[in-house]
Structure formats: structure tokens, C-alpha cells
């Protein structure tokens, strides 16, 4: 093994004193302070800042309209154009969910239902938002395009029970989604 000798840089007197460097730093900070008061910080427009620097004043100001389309918020169930619940409770999301936040109890669609040929739908569908890590695996694995991560991110609750989204709540958050593959139409 070869040893390489590295020579330390020689420090000049001003370097050794540190004082000029401190003033250099103060000057930089002062420049930014002035810019920020004048609302001229770099990127303040793009980041929708409050006008003071690039800081956003949450929760008075929110990011919502700047969220990208692919933002991963609360997972929820969706219905299609015909108001059919798309979930058929195949339980793949329950299987894939890394923190085991999803719990499904499958049920049969009664034979007098309009969608009896689909045969299966969830009887209960619960997502525990204290467990959810917003990874989006459930959306990715769903073979029926039934579960989507929405843009909501501020999930709050005073008890653990409040943090569990049940089937009714999940459809409320998810709402209707159009333009999806409709594999349960007549042609099948």
C-alpha cells in the first residue's frame, strides 16, 4: 500500500484570525434578509411563499393547488359512472399493504342486486390511518382500479377509532371516478 502525503494548506494571517470570514458570513445573511423583506428571495414565486422569504405560513397557507398529480395522500375507494362500487374484495391490497393497515371482510352480492353477476364486494373495508404509510402499493396492486390515493394529507382524529376509515367513509373520500376500464359491462 502506497502512502500519499497530503500537504495541509498554508493559512494566511487573515485566515488564521477568522474575523474577515465572520464578516463575510454576516454580509451574506444581511443580503438575504433584505431580499426576503422585499419579497425577492429566489424561488419564492414557485414555492408559493407568504412573501417573507420562501417560508409558507401553514396552516393559513396551503400547498393544495400546487400538489402534483401523482401526490400520494389518503387511500380511498371509488365508484364508477354507474355508481357501482368497483372493489370486489379480492384482498390483494390487504395482502400487499406493508404496515397491515387494510382489513377487509368479503361478502357476496345478493342475487337480486343489479350487479349480482359481479358476485363479490366488501362487506367491511377498513383502513387504519394511524398505520397507513401512504406508499401507494394498494393502488398499484388493485386489479379492479378501485382504490386510489387522494390528495388529502391532513388526517386528524382525537381517538384511534376516529383514525380508522370504514367503508362508508372511504367511498365518501373517494367519490366517483370516470374513464376507467369497465370490465363488468355486457361484453365482459
Amino acid at each position, binding site marked *: 500500500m502506497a502512502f500519499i502525503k497530503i500537504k495541509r494548506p498554508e493559512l494566511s494571517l487573515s485566515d488564521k484570525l477568522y474575523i474577515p470570514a465572520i464578516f463575510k458570513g454576516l454580509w451574506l445573511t444581511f443580503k438575504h434578509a433584505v431580499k426576503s423583506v422585499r419579497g425577492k428571495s429566489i424561488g419564492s414565486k414557485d414555492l408559493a411563499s407568504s412573501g417573507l422569504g420562501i417560508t409558507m405560513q401553514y396552516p393559513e397557507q396551503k400547498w393544495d393547488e400546487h400538489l402534483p398529480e401523482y401526490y400520494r395522500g389518503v387511500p380511498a375507494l371509488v365508484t364508477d359512472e354507474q355508481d357501482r362500487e368497483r372493489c*370486489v*374484495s*379480492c*384482498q*390483494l391490497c*390487504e*395482502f400487499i399493504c406493508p404496515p397491515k393497515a387494510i382489513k377487509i371482510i*368479503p*361478502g*357476496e352480492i345478493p*342475487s337480486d342486486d343489479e350487479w*349480482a*353477476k*359481479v*358476485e*363479490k364486494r366488501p362487506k367491511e373495508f377498513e383502513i387504519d390511518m394511524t398505520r397507513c404509510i401512504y406508499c401507494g402499493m394498494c393502488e398499484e396492486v388493485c*386489479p*379492479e382500479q378501485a382504490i386510489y390515493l387522494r390528495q388529502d394529507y391532513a388526517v386528524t382524529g382525537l381517538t384511534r377509532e376516529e383514525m380508522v376509515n370504514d367503508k362508508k367513509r372511504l367511498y365518501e373520500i373517494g367519490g366517483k371516478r370516470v374513464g376507467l376500464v369497465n*370490465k363488468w359491462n355486457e*361484453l*365482459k
Partner: protein
Amino acid sequence: MSEATTEKLPKDVAAEDGMVNVQVDGNWIQVPKGTRMIEACKIAEKEVPHYCYHPKLSSPGNCRMCLVQMGMPPRPAPGEDPKFKDDGFQEIGWMPRPVIACANTVAENMGIRTTGELVESCRHGVMEFLLINHPLDCPICDQAGECSLQEFSVEHGRGNSRFVDNKVKKPKNVDIGPRIRLDDERCIMCSRCIRFMDEVADDPALGFTDRGTHTTLTVHPGHRLDSNYSLNTADICPVGALTSNDFRFQMRVWFLKETKSIDTNCGTGSNTVIWTRGSEIFRVTPRENNEVNSCWMPDSHRLNFHYVNSEARLNTPMIRNTSGTHEAATWADSIQKAAEVLRIHQPGEIAIIGSGKQTNEELFLLGKLAEALETDLLTLVPRMGESDGKLVAADRNANTTGATLLWDTEDPYAKLDAIREGVRSKKIKTLVVFYENLLEEAGFKEEDLANLNLLVSNHILPNGTAKNSHIVLPGAAFAEKRGSMVNITGRLQRLNKAIEPPAGAMDDWEIIRDLIAALDKKAAPLYLIEDVLKAIGAAVPAFEEQTFSKIGDQGIQITVTGQTIPLLDKEHQRIERGEIVG
């Protein structure tokens, strides 16, 4: 070639043992004469995908999935001697067309190729045809996760369909029997279920109608699939065409834990797999054991597990107070109280009633309990029915043979009448009951039980006997304990713990052990169920040196009772006639 004349050729060596030499994917193996090619491949550990073939059923060869390439030595010209290579085998002449492996038997010097371009393209083609009309409803199909069509389409199928026309529509969700639901669109016409109902269940209720792509599985007019063996068709169905009404849409199979165990509903002791998730049983299916139940199981037995999941399960020991209501107590208090009262009674005033559904370990300890109490009034409750000529034995108690061996008696039920009379005449003042509701098969009446000074009983669910008991000890169900049982033919088999008993309940053998310990301070301590089996081995010759690992999944014949299982007798006859492989 002088060596060849002195040394034996491989074909002669194999023929001496009734074997033939077969080359599977380049390796020579010896298999018994008359073996099907598909079985030879299985012996060589080469997978041949198949749907219609089942070793216990006849081979119609209609799914065409098991196509392999076959070769035989070229036929010598007249007067020409066969030519042997240096390794003693003849050159294999490969056939240009594939053959089905399930319905052809092997021959000397045969070659089989389970891989290669021809075989792969055959499988590819067969898969594509099978999937043409198959619906894409795997997300709702109960078979998903254990579906051969799914598995082989991953291995041999194409990613997308080239079929542009509309799929053929067939009846869905057809009610063909009380326990089975049929979905004709998913059916791939393997005919396993038809053959099973015809050949094994002796109730040919199923058949095909129409032809070509419109072939439809259905029940014969005026028939229903209501045989007590109908659920086996759902087990052997390679796709989700036949599904169990009981298990349908309950849980996906990939969540379930499989525990190998045995059935405790009759003396046959069919081998089972118990499928559980958490502390809930979802289904029970048969497990292959060619000495007990082949691959099958009666519906009545496999569906008899729902009570284990019941909300009403007893989960705390209870002592009846003076006002007649039961109060929760601790295990130590309950056992101590029982022992105190038992101790002040004379041996002739104490009787013990066990159950033929208990394990060997529990029955052996009941014998020890009787010894500790110095009573000889020890019996089981008989449960005789009628054999169905297949797998349901006349004796509905699972472990009668075990009791006969362990208690060294001809008839473990002999003393029940005497005990019942003794209780009625108030001669017997205390009764210890395990796992039996005396008001049912045992023939006791509620007023008989009121005569007793002490009734200690062990149950898993509340019932009439528990209501009349002074002390109730909650126990474990068949899926919640380890242990062994001896079936009607004398085969020692193992029960495994699939789930934990409810919190507060205890394994039955531990209850009996604690009761013995409370009565007899000098009793040898038993810490594990293995210790009990060891003690049995020391005391009962038939169990000598038996351990749970020796019993294994398939069991050991420890005695010959002379009884046989009718379904197996029939199967052996069919193997002899060459109808099935077995």
C-alpha cells in the same frame, strides 16, 4: 463386445425387480413396470403440468396439457439383433409428435422429454386454447391462489389474448347442490368431478351437455349434487368452477395457515389440513394418506368445525354457588375445590366418564385419575351409527381403539349403564365428566344429575351438563390441541394444534394432570404432552417407544384390529384391475 455378453444389460437388471429403465430429460431411472409416464416424471422430479389426470381417478386424457415428447429404440429389421451402446442402452428414436404422459405407460428403454421446443410449444398452445373462453375474474374467484390454470398460465401462457371474438357465455352461479356452487364459464372440461362422482362417490350426478366450445358441465336432470362426498369435487377442481358454499368468499387462501391434523368425527380418522387465519378456522380439507382416507373426506365431517369459532365458547372455569348460579373462578381454586370434595368420598361413590373423541394422552391420564381415586367406574360414551360403506365408520368416536389399548379392556363403554343406574339410585355421589354432554348420547336426565353431590365437567360450549355442574372446566377443541389417536384399523395418528384455545380455557390433558396432582401429591410431574406419550409407552406395550415425531404426518400401524376402511378396499381393487394408478 465380449463384456456385454458376460455382464448383464440394464434392462435385465431392472426386469429382475419388475422394473423398467426410462430416460427422463437425459437421466436414466428405474420405475416399476406399468407406471404411467406422468408418474415416472414425478419420480424423476420433473414437473409435467396437467389438469384432468388424478392418480385416484381414471385417465381419459382430455385436457392435453401433459403432452411430452417420447422416444423408443428403433425396431430392428427382420433377423437383425438390437444394438446396445457402451452404457448398455439402445439408441432412442424420438417421435416427431408429442404424446400425453397421463394415459401412456412406460416401456423398457423409453425416453421422455419434459422440456424442449416441441413440448413447450404444445403447452403454449394448449394454454392459449384453454384461456380463450375463460373469464378474467380471478379477483373474485375463490380458486385464485390455488388455481392450476393461474399457475400454468404464468409458466406457459402468453401475456395477452389474441382472441378478438366475444367469449362464449355459459351459466354462472348455478345451484347444483346444497354445498357446491358451479360456475360454468370457469370450467375447463377436465371432467375430474364427473369421474369422481361416478367412480369414488358412486353417485354419478354430473355430466357434460353440448359440444365443442359450448360444452357445459351440469347435473343430470332430476339429480342434484347432494352426495355426502360432494365437496371433494371442489378440492379436485383445478379451477374455480366448483366452489364450496361454506368457504365461498370467506377468505383468500393465501392468508390461511395450513396445519396437518386428523378428523375426529368418526373412527376412520381421515387425515386433514386445517386452514386458519388468526384464531379462526376457515375450512378443513382432506390430506392424502393411502392407508386411511386416500384423498377424500365426507362433507359432514369437514364442515363440522364451526362450533370451534363460536362466540359462546367457555373461557373461564366456573364454580356453582349456593344459590345455583355459576361464578367465574381461578383454575387453582376450581381444581382444589374439586379435589377436596372428591377426596371425602368413598371409591365406590366416584365415577369418571370420558369421551371417545379424546386423545390417547387424555384417556391415559383419565385412567391415572381413576387410579388416584381408587375407582374402577371409568367409561366412555358410545356413539354408534351406520357405516356409509366409504369413509364414515360406524363408530363415530374417533379413538375407541385407543381406549381399548390404553385401559386394557375389551369394551371401554361397558360401565356406562352401571354408572347411570348408580347415579339414579344415588349410590354414585360424584361424577367427573370430560368432553361429553350427558343429556345427549349418554342417556342421563337432568333430575339424575341433581342427585349428585359433585359434578365436575369439562366442555368447550355451554350445555345441559355444564348447567348442572358444580364445577365447569373449559377445555380445548380438536383443532386446539396436540395429541394422538388410534383409528379403527389400529393406526396411530397425530393431531396438531392449528389455533390456540380461547384465553382462560386449558388443554384437556393439563386439566386432568392438575386434577391428579391435586389428589395425589406423589404423582410424577408431567410438563409436556411428550412426557405423557412417554409414560404411555412405558405402560402400554402397543405404544412402546412411540414419539410424536415418529408418528409423523402419515401415522404408524400399531395394532391390527381386523377392521378395514371400505373406500380403501374398493380403491385397491381398482388399482389391481388397472383402472387407476393409485
